[in-house]
C-alpha cells in the first residue's frame, strides 16, 4: 500500500493484537499495518461475552473497533483468514489458502481456545466451549430448544456461562472436579459463600465430580462420572480451561512451551517476530485474563516503535466475576500459607468477606466477596508492594461503617497505570481528557475515553480522578433549568406563558430562547402540559409532544405490544363486563390478563393495529392506566356489605372517579376510599386517601407506595359528601397549578408544606371555591380518548397502522 513504510503484520484480530496496534498508532506512523483474523468479525471485547449470553448486551454492543476504525487508520483487515505459517526465509506469512503476504515485523496475538476434555463423546452435538461469538450463538440457540444444561468447570468462565444459561431459562448444573469453586482465584471461605449465593440464584452444583464420558447418540444426552453416576442433560458447555493457540508458532519453528516463549520485550525466538496476550508464555506464565495483555501490549508497542521502555516483568492478576449481584474479587497471592500474615473479616449476616495477605508486612494479595469497593485500591497497593501501616490498616479494615477516607490514592497513581481494565484506559489518558477537553462528568469521560464503558468496576476510581483533577470546581453551581434546553425553571416558564400568551410548545421554545429549537423528551411533554393547564379551553393538545403511552392511549411493553386497561369505577365491575373482557381477550389473543394494583384488569400484549378494534368491542371508557391523570380509586367493600363499614366507600369511590377522570395532571394520581378506619383500601399510600368514620370523612394527602414510599398526611376532616368532593377538587387543582411536571404529590406536599396547602384549600373558603370553579371548567373540556380516536378514522389509520410496501419499484 505504501512502499516506504515498514510492513507490520498482526496475526490475530482480538483484544491483545488490536490494543497493541492502538498503542502503536499513538506512538508512530511508520508502519503499514495488516491484520489477519480467523473470525468473521471486527475486533470485539471477549470478556463481555458473558453479558451477551446474559442478554444485557448484544454482539454489536461489544464490538470495540468497527470496520470504520480500520479504514480510518489505513489498516488492512482480512477477516475469516487464518495464517498458518511464517516463512522467515522469504519474510512472508502464509495463509490457509496458500496466499503469501510480505512482512518486516510480525506480532502474533492468536489468543487461546477452550480446552475440550478428551473424554469419549466429547465430539457429540450439543457440546461447546465458551470462548467466542460462535459459542455464544450456539448457547443462545440451545436455550430455545433444550431445557437441561451442564457446565463442566466451576471456574470464572464456567460460572458466567452457567448464570447466562439460567438467565436464558435453562436448568443448569455446574460440574466441578474440585470441592471449591474458582479454587484458582478464591480461598475456601469465599468459595463457599459464592456457592451459596449462586445456589440462591438457581444454579445447581455437583462438586468433586470427574467427567468420564459424554453419553448419547448423535447428540449428547448425559454425563457419566468416574464413580459411574450419571447426570442427564441436553447440552454441555466445557469450561475447564484454555489452551494457548500456538499452531502458527509451532509450524514456523519457534520456541513453544505451553505458550509461545517471549522475553521481557515480547520477542519470540524468531527475529522480528513478537507475541502478545494469551498465546504467549512469559517467565513460565501463560495469562488467561485481560489486564496482562494491556500491560504487555504497551511495552511491546514502545519497543517496536523504538521508544525507551522498562521491561515487562509479569503482571499481578486480579479476578472479577461478571455476574450481576455477585461481587467477587481476588488479586495477587490469596491462598494463605505459613509465611503469610492474614487479616480477615467474615460477616455471615451481611454476606461479606475480606481477606488481605501480607508477607514480611508487604501487601501481596487479597480476596473480597460481597463488597468489592476496595478492589481498585487493593490492586494498586499490591502492585506497589505497599507496606502495611496503622493508617492503611484503619483505612482498609475501618470500623465497619465504611466512612474512611481514600481520596489521596489517585494522586500517587502512575500516569501509565491502567484504570479501566476492560478497555485499557490509563490514568494519563483520563487526566488528559479532563484537562484538554474540559470534561466534568464520568459520562463524558466514558464517551471520550471508553473508561467505565464495559463492566463499570472502575467508576469509583474515575470519579476520584475527576475530583482530584478538578478540585473545588468539581461541583458547579450553575443554574438548573427544567432540562438541558433552557436555564428557566418551571415557575418562570409558566409565568412567561401567561404573560406573553404563548400557545404552542414551539412558540414557547422560540420566544424563550431554547437551545434546541424543538426541545427534548423532557421539556416537550412538560410544556404541553403547562399550556393545557393554563388554557384548558383553547389549548390544542400536541400528540407529537406526548410520550408514546399517552399518544396511543395504551401502555407500551418492551416488545412493542400494548396493555389495555378499561375503567372500573371504584374497582367495581359486573359479570356482563367481565364476560366481554374475557371474550375480547380470547379473540385478540392477549398474552396475559392481570389484576392491577389498583383493582382493575390489564389486558397485556395487544398489537398496536388491534388497539382501535379492542376499544370498540370493549365499548368501555379508557382506564387511563398510561396517563398523567387520575388512574384508579381503590375502595373497600364499605357499608353496603361490610359489618364494620360506616360509609358507602364503593359509591363514593365511583363518584370521585367519574367526577375527576380524564383530566391532565402533573403526574399519575391515585385515590383510595375506605368505609371505616380499618383502612382496607390503604389510603396511607395514595395521593388522596379518604377514610370514612361515623360522622363524615377524613382526608389524607401525599401518600406514595412507589419509588419513594411516603405515608400520607392527614389534611382535614369533613362532615358531608359535598364538602368531600369540593375539597378533593380544590386539592387536585392546587396541585395542577403549582406542581412541576412529573412531580408526585408526595414530593409536592413536602416542597410546599402541608400548612401552605391547608391554608389554601381548607382555611381559605373563597380560594377553595375558586379552585373548584377552575377544575370544573377544565373538566368540561375532556372527552374519552378511545371514543375520540375511533371517531377519527383517518387519524386512526396514520397512528395505529403501518404501511406495507407491495408494489415493485
Amino acid at each position, binding site marked *: 500500500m505504501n512502499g516506504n513504510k515498514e510492513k507490520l503484520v498482526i496475526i490475530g484480530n482480538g483484544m491483545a493484537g488490536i490494543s497493541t496496534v492502538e498503542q502503536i498508532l499513538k506512538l508512530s506512523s511508520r508502519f503499514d499495518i495488516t491484520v489477519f483474523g480467523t473470525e468473521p468479525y471486527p475486533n470485539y471485547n471477549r470478556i463481555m461475552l458473558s453479558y451477551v449470553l446474559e*442478554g*444485557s*448486551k*448484544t454482539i*454489536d*454492543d461489544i464490538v470495540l473497533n*468497527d*470496520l*470504520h476504525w480500520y479504514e480510518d487508520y489505513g489498516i488492512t483487515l482480512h477477516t475469516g483468514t487464518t495464517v498458518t505459517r511464517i516463512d522467515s526465509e522469504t519474510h512472508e506469512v502464509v495463509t490457509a489458502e496458500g496466499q503469501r503476504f510480505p512482512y518486516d515485523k510480525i506480532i502474533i496475538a492468536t489468543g487461546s481456545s477452550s480446552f475440550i476434555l478428551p473424554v469419549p463423546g466429547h465430539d457429540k452435538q450439543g457440546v461447546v466451549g465458551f470462548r467466542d461469538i460462535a459459542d455464544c450463538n450456539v448457547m443462545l440457540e440451545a436455550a430455545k430448544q433444550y431445557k437441561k444444561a451442564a457446565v463442566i468447570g466451576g471456574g470464572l468462565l464456567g460460572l458466567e456461562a452457567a448464570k447466562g444459561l439460567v438467565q436464558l431459562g435453562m436448568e443448569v448444573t455446574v460440574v466441578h472436579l474440585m470441592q471449591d469453586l474458582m479454587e484458582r482465584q478464591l480461598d475456601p471461605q469465599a468459595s463457599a459463600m459464592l456457592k451459596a449465593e449462586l445456589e440462591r440464584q438457581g444454579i445447581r452444583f455437583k462438586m468433586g465430580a470427574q467427567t468420564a464420558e459424554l453419553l448419547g447418540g448423535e447428540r449428547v444426552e448425559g454425563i457419566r462420572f468416574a464413580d459411574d453416576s450419571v447426570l442427564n442433560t441436553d447440552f454441555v458447555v466445557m469450561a475447564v480451561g484454555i489452551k494457548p493457540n500456538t499452531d502458527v508458532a509451532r509450524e514456523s519453528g519457534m520456541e513453544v512451551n505451553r505458550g509461545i516463549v517471549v522475553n521481557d520485550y515480547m520477542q519470540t525466538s524468531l527475529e522480528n517476530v513478537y507475541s502478545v496476550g494469551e498465546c504467549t508464555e512469559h517467565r513460565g506464565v501463560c495469562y488467561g485474563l485481560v489486564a496482562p495483555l494491556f500491560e504487555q501490549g504497551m511495552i511491546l508497542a514502545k519497543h517496536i516503535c523504538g521508544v525507551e521502555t522498562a521491561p515487562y516483568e509479569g503482571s499481578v492478576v486480579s479476578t472479577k466475576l461478571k455476574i450481576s449481584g455477585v461481587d467477587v474479587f481476588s488479586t495477587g497471592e490469596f491462598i494463605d500459607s505459613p509465611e503469610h500474615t492474614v487479616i480477615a473479616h467474615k460477616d455471615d449476616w451481611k454476606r461479606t468477606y475480606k481477606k488481605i495477605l501480607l508477607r514480611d508486612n508487604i501487601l501481596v494479595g487479597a480476596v473480597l466477596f460481597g463488597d468489592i469497593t476496595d478492589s481498585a485500591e487493593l490492586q494498586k497497593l499490591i502492585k506497589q508492594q505497599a507496606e502495611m501501616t496503622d493508617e492503611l490498616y484503619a483505612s482498609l479494615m475501618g470500623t465497619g461503617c465504611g466512612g474512611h477516607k481514600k481520596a489521596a490514592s489517585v494522586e500517587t497513581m502512575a500516569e501509565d497505570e491502567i484504570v479501566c481494565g476492560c478497555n485499557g484506559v490509563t490514568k494519563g489518558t483520563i487526566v488528559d481528557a479532563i484537562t484538554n477537553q474540559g470534561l466534568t462528568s464520568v*459520562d*463524558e469521560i*466514558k*464517551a471520550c475515553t471508553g473508561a467505565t*464503558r464495559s463492566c463499570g468496576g472502575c467508576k469509583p476510581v474515575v470519579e476520584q480522578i475527576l475530583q482530584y483533577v478538578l478540585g473545588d470546581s468539581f461541583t458547579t453551581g450553575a443554574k438548573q433549568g427544567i432540562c438541558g434546553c433552557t436555564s428557566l425553571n418551571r415557575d418562570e416558564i409558566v409565568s412567561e406563558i401567561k404573560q406573553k400568551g404563548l400557545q404552542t410548545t*414551539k412558540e414557547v421554545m422560540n420566544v424563550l430562547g431554547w437551545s*434546541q*429549537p*424543538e*426541545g*427534548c*423528551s423532557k421539556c*416537550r411533554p412538560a410544556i404541553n402540559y403547562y399550556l393545557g393547564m393554563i388554557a384548558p379551553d383553547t389549548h390544542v393538545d400536541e*400528540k*407529537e*409532544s406526548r*410520550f*408514546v403511552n399517552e*399518544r*396511543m392511549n395504551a401502555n*407500551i411493553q*418492551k*416488545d*412493542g405490544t400494548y396493555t389495555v386497561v378499561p375503567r372500573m369505577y371504584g374497582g367495581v365491575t359486573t359479570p356482563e363486563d367481565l364476560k366481554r373482557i374475557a371474550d375480547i381477550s380470547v379473540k385478540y389473543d392477549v398474552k396475559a390478563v392481570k389484576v392491577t394494583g389498583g383493582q382493575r384488569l390489564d389486558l397485556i400484549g395487544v398489537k398496536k393495529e388491534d388497539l382501535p378494534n379492542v376499544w370498540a368491542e370493549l365499548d368501555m371508557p379508557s382506564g387511563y392506566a398510561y396517563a398523567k391523570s387520575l388512574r384508579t380509586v381503590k375502595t373497600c367493600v364499605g357499608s353496603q356489605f361490610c359489618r364494620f363499614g360506616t360509609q358507602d366507600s364503593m359509591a363514593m369511590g365511583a363518584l370521585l372517579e367519574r367526577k375527576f377522570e380524564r383530566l391532565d395532571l402533573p403526574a399519575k394520581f391515585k385515590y383510595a376510599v375506605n368505609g371505616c378506619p380499618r383502612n382496607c383500601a390503604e389510603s396511607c399510600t395514595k395521593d388522596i386517601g379518604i377514610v370514612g368514620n361515623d360522622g363524615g370523612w377524613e382526608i389524607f394527602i401525599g401518600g406514595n407506595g412507589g419509588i419513594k414510599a411516603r405515608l400520607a398526611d392527614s389534611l382535614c376532616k369533613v362532615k358531608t359528601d359535598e364538602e368531600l368532593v369540593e375539597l378533593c377538587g380544590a386539592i387536585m387543582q392546587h396541585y395542577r397549578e403549582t406542581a412541576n411536571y412529573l412531580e408526585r404529590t408526595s414530593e409536592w406536599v413536602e416542597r410546599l408544606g402541608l400548612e401552605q396547602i391547608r391554608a389554601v384549600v381548607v382555611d381559605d373558603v373563597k380560594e377553595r371555591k375558586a379552585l373548584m370553579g377552575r377544575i370544573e371548567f377544565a373538566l368540561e373540556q375532556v372527552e374519552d380518548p378511545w371514543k375520540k380516536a375511533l371517531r377519527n378514522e383517518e*387519524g386512526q389509520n*396514520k*397512528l395505529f397502522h*403501518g*404501511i*406495507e*410496501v407491495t*408494489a415493485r*419499484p
Partner: protein
Amino acid sequence: MTTQQSAIYYPAGEIEEFLPQIGRVVEVKGQSLAVFRTSDGTIFAAENRSPHPKGGPLAEGMVSGYDLYDPLYDWKIDLNTGLVQAPDQGQVRMYPVKIENGQVWIAI
C-alpha cells in the same frame, strides 16, 4: 457497519400519510422500518429496532429537530447518522430516502 450497496428504491406512500413528528412503521420486503417526518418535511427511514440491548420498536419515539428519543429507554438518536448520542452508545441502521412529487421512496 452500515454501508449500502446498489440499493433499490421502493415507493412508501405519499408524504401526507406521515404525520409530522410522529413515526410510522413501513414494511418493505419483510423489513420493518420506522419512518419519521420532521417538522421541516424531511423524511428519515430507520430500522425499527432500538439499539438498546433490550431492543424494542423505534417508531413510537419522540422527534425533536433531527433527533429521535427512543420510546422505551429515552436514548437520543441522531436521525442523520443513526448514531446514539452520548453517554449511550450504538447506531441505528438508516436507509436512504428520496421524495419525488410528494411520493416517498425508500432504498433497501
